[in-house]
């Protein structure tokens, strides 16, 4: 929920700064937002996956990513969009999401995966980041006009992500599946007491 609020504020701030063309400030906001978004997504995935190897990989990747994002922030000549950090963020989160999905397959589950709210959050991350990955990679190679044109992809991915998050919030996790076979007892006299 916290992420969604921050994401909303970020989108509006970018809209304001884009309209006045204050590029350096946009770059700062985008860079901070990338780190924030990566942290939130990673923390979420870290908390829902039990695999120890995964946890250590996430910890190492996170440290490396933070270091890289800081270096990119201070030494980048770009003053508009943190393309490299955002692309690496997308690739890492997509990889973690794929790991989560395959981890779910190996678990002896008794509930359908789509009855788990975590699944919808992960689907939200995946759709959003898959949809925007190429946009982030190519962002600095596009002219302002072309990018503005393509920016609709980001908006579309963002809306899809928020819809999927809404599905996640409205999904109640059922603990077990109902047994579909008959109850051998038909004298439920205790139910009436």
């Amino acid at each position, binding site marked *: 929920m916290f992420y969604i609020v921050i994401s909303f504020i970020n989108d509006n701030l970018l809209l304001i700064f884009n309209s006045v063309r204050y590029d350096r400030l946009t770059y700062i906001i985008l860079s901070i937002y990338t780190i924030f978004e990566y942290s939130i997504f990673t923390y979420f995935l870290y908390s829902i996956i039990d695999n120890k190897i995964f946890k250590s990989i996430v910890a190492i990747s996170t440290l490396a990513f933070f270091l890289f994002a800081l270096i990119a922030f201070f030494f980048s000549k770009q003053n508009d969009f943190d393309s490299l950090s955002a692309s690496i963020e997308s690739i890492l989160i997509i990889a973690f999401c794929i790991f989560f999905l395959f981890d779910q397959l190996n678990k002896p589950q008794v509930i359908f995966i789509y009855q788990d709210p975590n699944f919808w959050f992960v689907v939200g991350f995946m759709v959003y980041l898959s949809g925007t*990955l190429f946009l982030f990679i190519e962002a600095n190679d596009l002219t302002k006009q072309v990018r503005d044109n393509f920016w609709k992809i980001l908006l579309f991915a963002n809306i899809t992500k928020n819809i999927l998050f809404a599905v996640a919030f409205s999904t109640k996790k059922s603990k077990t599946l109902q047994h579909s076979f008959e109850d051998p007892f038909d004298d439920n006299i205790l139910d009436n007491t």
Partner: protein
Amino acid sequence: MIFLNANNPDSEVSLMLFFGTIGMLVLAIGMIVFIIFHQRKVIRYQLRLQKLEYEQQKTLLNASIRFQEEERQRIAADLHDDAGPLLATARLYLNENLVNLDKTAQLQSIYNAKQIIDDTIQLIRNISHSLMPPTLKNFGLESAVNDLFQKISGSGSLNASCRFHDYRERLQPDQELIIFRVIQELINNILKHSNSSFIHLTQNLSGSKLYIRMHHDGRGLTQADFEKLNKSSGGLGLKNIQSRLKLLQGRIFFEKDMSQTYYKVTIEVPKTEEMTLKEEQAVTY
């Protein structure tokens, strides 16, 4: 397509961006759909297995109840048909007219009544022993099985022998009784159906598991036959064996010897602590 038409100078980058995005989305959605369908398939399969297991348990429970009822009927018949007439006859000898009879006739009547009461005592003792063999209770499984095998051998119809290799520590009384009943049932089946000339039983201990193996040279069962009979409506004795072993978390294997001459039945029972067994029984009942 509006993206492609609108941006001629950047067409190569635009094309890559457009198809890259579409490709990534297709891949991501494809993977999610695959995961959902695969998981649904796995869960449905698990549910089917659960249902089969539930039905199997239901069959075992029914068999167990039927077996108990048959056992009760047998005891009732023994008491009614044997003990009842004997006691009624004894009563006839000891009626009120006894005092009017001469001394010799009185003595003869009392002697006859005493004989009949002794027979009744023996009959009731036999019934009681069939319910809980005293050898098993007092001396354990090894002695009870030895006793049983000696009785079978004594009949002269076939040669029965047994050897306990490692039975220094007795199992819990409940466990011993269940195993003894399973052995009795198996021997019963061998005597009834196999037409064999010998039965040999061996006991072994491996790790925390107790193994009992029986060999015989008659007509026997393989595991496939056992499972088939277990699923059918017949084979009450076998179902009873299965449900008893389930109580001990044990297993049974029916197989033919490598030489194809003998049939082997192996019972595997984990040695459990008293508490575990009691918990198991509480759950079962």
